[in-house]
Each structure stands twice: as C-alpha cells, then as structure tokens.
C-alpha cells in the first residue's frame, strides 16, 4: 500500500487533553474539527486517541490497513512469526457512516458524504516474545517491525502501533471518518484530529493523518520544506521513509530524539523549531550553551517550512509552530483541559467558557503533561 505521489497539505488540526487523565468520548473532538470543515477538502481525515484500550494497556495495539485479503494473509503470516497475537479483530465501523449534524461550510444540497470503499481494517493486540528482545529493547523491536511491514509487505500499512492508543484515519472529511470509526464509543484522555487538504493528488487511506509510530502520533498542518535533509538525516538511524509524505519525518524525529536520544520534550522541540542565532546569542550562558549544541549536533533534524503540529504521546500532548509561525495555532485552558487548534473558534465550539486563550509564539512549544500519579 504505497503512494507514488507527494502530497503537500493545507489542513486543520485540533487537540484536546485532560491533564488529570479523565477520559471522554470522541464527540467533542469531532465537533471541534467539524467546525473547520472548509479547511479540509474531503481527501483525508483522522484522529488519534490515548487511553482507549485500558483492558489491553500492556499490549501493543496495531491498527493495520490492508488493500485485500491476500495482503492481510501475508501480513498475518509475518506477524505470527514476530509477535504473540493475544487478540485480533475487525475494527468496529459504521460502513457508509456519515456525520449527520450541522457542518459549517457543508451545504445542504450536497448532502452527507458517507465513507465508502474502505480498505480492510483490522486491529491486533500483541505482545513481543521475550526471545526476540534479547539484544534490543521491545520498543526498538516494534519500530523495526513497523518499518518492515510498511516497506516490505505489499498492500499492508500499519496506521498505529502504540500501547493503549490508536489512530483512526481514512479518506473523507474528518467528521465523517469519526462517525465511520464509531469514535463516540471510545473514551480517551487525549484526542487529536486532522482535516486534510492535499493540493495535488487524491489522498489514500494510509496517507491521512495522524502519522503514528509506537505511541507517537502527529497531526500536521503545513509542509516540511526541509523534508529532503530530514529524511537523509533519519535514514542512517534505520528509519525508512516509505509514505512519501513529509509528516512522517516528524514522528520519526520525535522517536529518535526523545525515545532513543532521551532528550526532554522541550529540548526536542527546540531541535525541530530551533531559536534563531540572534536570540541564542543573547541567552544566559547555560541556555546558550545548550541551544548552540543542539543546533550544531542536530542541524539535520531542524524542521523548516510552514507547520503547526500537534504531537500526541501516552503522557501528554505538545503543540508547536515553525520558527516564523507560517501556520496558525491557538491554545486554551479550562480547568484540567488543554486545547490546541488551528482556530480559536474550533475550541470555543466545544468549550465556550475558557480560563485562558493564547496564540503561542513562533517556535515555542506548548506542552501538556498528564499529572504525576495518573496512570
């Protein structure tokens, strides 16, 4: 399941997080992203949700898309060799499902746009056999398997591969995708969403956002103009960029910097959207030393071009912009809730009464973290 077309995107993003770990169903995030209907064009929508599989929270939950039965069989053959499959099942969906509510920008005469012609969607709850991880950590092992399936198993695509989380994405408007995947029946403490406007090609199911690896998920509005060097920077570390879309490098860069190089998230964000030298030169000594070293060592990981990105992971949510803020992002807080969105209206739509609303400065990450002690 590979796409030969590069897809720059317009898009909308939205994210909701309860820092106290309260889980809520998918209706709010659908409502929020629906308000930005016009920012998408029906060629891709998707959601990431954290905390949805509490019963299987120790197992890797793989959401996989297959072009056909043969691909599924090939892939399962492979999975059986590599994992202990504890449970597998078809993803619950509403075939032909569509958002019935009022949608800004969708004209009545157009009618609803049900999701049709999905690939085979299956989910697997799997454990990593101990024998396989004698020489690598189990997360490293899972990354290797995801890379292998996405690039070597024809017709199969791993949409997400983390624990107690999942990606729900496809071709269509995000609100319809949300209804199709029955997100109203899941409960999560972090929801992120994406509405897509690819400008020159039909989308494909695997190419919709979020992009996920382990428990990292990325929704992204913009275009990574530095994709060429980010890709070449990642390749020697074993990442394979097979999706031909710029967003995947962001997920892999976070995986490299935070999981493998153990950088704190704030510093990882400083690598991806680094401060300008003129600002670094004015920093106090310790900070200047750190910022200079980050740019010297991780220059290949600098993201350039317009973007606003929401990163989800099991312990939190991070929103950030490119260095000169060429894409919009507004953040807000209400009690334990943190909101991020392309537009303030999409936050007000679900939380009209807010404690605080602000537009983060260019390149400055907004970091939401689960309270300590919340499992």
């Amino acid at each position, binding site marked *: 399941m590979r796409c030969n077309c590069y897809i720059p995107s317009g898009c909308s993003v939205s994210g909701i997080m309860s820092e106290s770990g309260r889980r809520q169903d998918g209706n709010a995030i659908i409502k929020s992203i629906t308000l930005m209907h016009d920012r998408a064009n029906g060629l891709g929508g998707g959601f990431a949700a954290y905390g949805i599989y509490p019963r299987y929270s120790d197992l890797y939950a793989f959401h996989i898309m297959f072009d056909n039965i043969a691909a599924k069989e090939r892939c399962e053959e492979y999975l059986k060799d590599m994992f202990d499959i504890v449970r597998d099942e078809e993803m619950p969906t509403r075939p032909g499902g569509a958002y019935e509510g009022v949608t800004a920008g969708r004209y009545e005469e157009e009618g609803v746009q049900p999701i049709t012609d999905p690939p085979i969607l299956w989910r697997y709850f799997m454990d990593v056999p101990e024998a396989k991880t004698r020489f690598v950590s189990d997360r490293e092992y899972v990354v290797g398997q995801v890379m292998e399936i996405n690039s070597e198993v024809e017709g199969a695509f791993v949409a997400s591969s983390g624990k107690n989380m999942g990606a729900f994405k496809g071709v269509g408007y995000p609100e319809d995708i949300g209804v199709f995947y029955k997100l109203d029946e899941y409960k999560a403490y972090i929801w992120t969403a994406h509405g897509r406007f690819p400008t020159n090609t039909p989308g494909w199911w695997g190419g919709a956002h979020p992009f996920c690896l382990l428990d990292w998920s990325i929704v992204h509005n913009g275009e990574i103009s530095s994709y060429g060097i980010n890709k070449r920077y990642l390749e020697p570390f074993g990442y394979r960029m097979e999706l031909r879309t710029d967003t995947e490098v962001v997920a892999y860069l976070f995986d490299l910097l935070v999981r*493998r*190089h153990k950088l704190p998230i704030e510093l990882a964000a400083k690598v991806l959207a680094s401060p300008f030298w003129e600002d670094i030169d004015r920093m106090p000594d310790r900070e200047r030393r750190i910022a200079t070293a980050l740019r010297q060592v991780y220059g290949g990981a600098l993201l*350039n071009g*317009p973007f606003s990105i929401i990163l989800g992971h099991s312990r939190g949510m991070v929103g950030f912009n490119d260095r000169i803020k060429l894409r919009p992002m507004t953040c807000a807080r209400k009690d334990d809730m943190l909101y991020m969105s392309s537009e303030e209206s999409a936050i007000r739509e679900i939380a009209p009464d807010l404690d605080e609303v602000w537009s983060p400065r260019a390149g400055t990450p907004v970091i939401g973290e689960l309270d300590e002690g919340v499992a």
Partner: protein
Amino acid sequence: MTSELPPEFIVKIDYNMCRRCKRCVMNCSFGCMHFTDRVVPEHKLCVACQRCVTFCPEHAITITKNELAYKENANWSPETRQNILKQAETGGILLTGMGNPRDYPILWDHLLVDACQVTNPSIDPLREPMELRTFLGRKPDRLEFVESEDGEIDLATEIEPQVRLDVPIVFGAMSYGAVSLSVHRSLAMAAARSGTLMNTGEGGLHRELYPYSGNIIVQVASGRFGVHSEYLNTSAMVEIKIGQGAKPGIGGHLPGEKVDEDISKTRMIPVGSDAISPAPHHDIYSIEDLSQLIYAIKEATDYEKPVSVKISAVHNVAAIASGIVRAGADVVTIDGFRGGTGAAPMVIRDNVGIPIELALAAVDQRLRDEGIRNNASIICAGGIRNSGDMAKAIALGADAVVIGTAALVALGCRICQKCYTGNCAWGIATQRPELVRRLDPQVGAERLTNLLTAWSLELKEILGSLGVNSIESLRGSRERLRGIGLDSQTLELLGVKPAGVGQ
C-alpha cells in the same frame, strides 16, 4: 634551438589613439611591450593577462587570439600541435597554472534548484531572519544532559572544538611563495571582516599575519615548510594536505629564485633554495600513519582546534574519506579536478582526478551510509564559480565551500595560467617587489569582502525561495535539486532526481 612556436596572441595597438604614455610598457611584466619611437609589442611574449588593456588610458590596445590557419583537424587541435612543438624543443614536462581548463562536463550547470509555490510560502530574506552560520568540526551523534539537584538541565556531552563561519565560504589554500604577501594580507583581512577563514597553504604564515589567528587555517603539507608549534597554535584550524585537486598524487616545487628573505624566514629554509614538497608525506604511507599525524597535531594544539585533512577527488574518494574520518579528522576537504594551482604538469592537471560534484555526492552519501556523517564536516573545493555552485554544493552535502580561483579573480587575476612564471602582472602570483606592490591589501580585502557579501546575499535569496530560513535545511537536501541532461547513472551517483519529476 630557436623556437618555431607561433605567438598565441596578437597585440593590436591603435596608433591613432595611442598617446605614447608608455603606461603599457611599464605595466607589462612579461616584457612584451617595447618602446622605440612608439610602442612595439613582441607578440610571442604576450600571455593575455589584460594588464596593459586595463590600464591603457586611451583604450588603444586589444589582444586577440592568433587564429592560425592550420589545416583543420578535429583530432590535432592547434594547441595539441603546439604542445608537441614545445616538447620537441625542450624535452621537458609541460608546466601550467590554474585549474583544468578543458571542456569536461560541468555538472553544476546540469543541476537546478527548487523553489516554493503556494503550499509552502517562500520567505523574503530582507524581512525575515536568514541564517548562514555554520560550524566546522566533529559533532557527536547525540547529546546527553544532566539534571542538577535544583532541576536545572545542563549539557553533559563535551563537544569537540568547532570553528564558526558566518558565511559558508572559506578561502582556498594558496601558499606564501606561490602568491604574494599582499594576497595573504588581503585574504586574512577579508576573512576577519566576513567571519570566515583563509588558508595558509603549505608555505607557513608570515609573522605579520599572526594577529589574524582566529581566521586562519594553517596547513601542514609534505614539505612541512614553516611548521612549528607556534604556527600550529596561531590558527582556528589545522589542515593536513594530502592532495590537491589540480595535481593529485603530485608534489610541489617553489623555485629558489622566489625564496627571498621573508619567504625564507616564513618557510624556514635558506634564501634562494628550492622548496620541494614531496609527492607523499614521507611519514604517511598508510591510514594508520595519517592517524598518528592527526593526533600528533591535536596533542601539539592541546585538542583545541579541529584538524582537517585535504584530499583530491580521485576514483575511490568516498572510501578514502571514510578512512580519514575514522582516523580522527574533524573536517574532510575534498578538492575537485578543476581546482587551481600555482604550477602543475599539464598532463596531470588535465587528465587526473574526477569532478568535485560526483566526489562530494559520493563522500556525503558514504559517510551517511556508515553513520559517521556527523563526525566530520565536509568542505568542497575546486571549481566553485558563483553562489549558484555554492548553493548546489551545499545541497549535495557540503558544510562549506572553498574559493581559490574566484578569490584571485576578485583580486585582479585574469586566469592567464602563467602563475608558475613568477611574472604575474597583477601582483598575485609573484614575488617581484615592483609587481607585489601593485596589489594593495586594503583594496584587495575590500574586494574580497564584497564578493563574500554578494554571495551571501544571493545564497539568502536562494534559501528564501526554497522556503527555508537556515542553511541547515539546505545542507544535504538533495530533494531540492533536479538534474537536467544527465544520464541515469550520473543522477543516481548524485542522488538527484531528473527535472520534471516531483517529490
């Protein structure tokens, strides 16, 4: 034996315009202009250096190629025939100066740069920050941090010495001896003003230039001329010269007549003695030996300066560069076959080595494949003619580029290729005091600074059109290049897609 060689150029003087001021006679350092009752050129001695043409107040002089009416022959060009005549008369190796002039494909001219439209906005460098700052030196693969008791995060990784460049252009290695002290002075001043580096070449560093130590690469070559502890430490970076693009595998020879008092002191050799650089370093016969020298230099400089190793672009350059990085070099300088020289056997200059574009692409990819690209910076030398070449070199993977010939042209050089004669009319490749005086280092420094400023502005325009605001996002980003008129194998070697193909 009287020479049968016809003159290469014809000097035409318009006697109606000539005021007989004799300025051309004074300016010609090759002895071509005589004055009887009027100026009489001796065509055979003209090298087309354009000095007389430039300084004739009446613009009465034109120099044209002597179009010899040889019987046409695609195989036996006039040049080929004349070279045979020269060798028949002298029995010697043909000497020449400057870089390879032959009509090999210039791959820079077959590469095109991308630009933004609609979905990713281009950036206006006049309104937004546009960053060119570059650091040369070995970087670790990753950084580690420690958290102090009060929760402050600090850097735990010690980073090896880095040299900061404000523009990703350094001046090429040209030794004092091959070029005049005026050239060295101009280069040092311009490097200091522009925040970059000049390179001493293999002839040591004149004491007058010691104050510029922060902007100087000191070279250690096979002759070890002028190398001493203070010299090594009067620098931003030390470079071991293994090879030179114009003459891979060949040493150097500064004739004794150029070795005056000052050069003698700088090179630490007697006045009037030939300075001969052997082809190899006689203490480097293997990669282990190179490693020893690298670490000997690091010891001598207290591990405070990056050490660069300069090699010429030869067939196996990628593997050699990888070995050099593993041997401890912090910077690899690759010099392509169009790189300049003060003197080289023509047969070597014109036939040995490979284009820098291919060598650079191969080295950058090889270091990435081996996971050691971060361990060394790559400097690309040999045939960088303008900021477009520079941008393409950086996109192929260079951290910085070298300009040697371009810098000399800025100082007045007209690329007449007679550097080895010591008669340079522009005061560049000469030690004759009356000629050296022609190059005012203040003026030279200003012209060089202007050149670097102009190229920086142009590079910022290119970055802006690419929608990125930092040089890191261009470096190695071959996705932003496309090839035109290149065969598929060359494209593959360059790691570049053909024009017309999207991402």
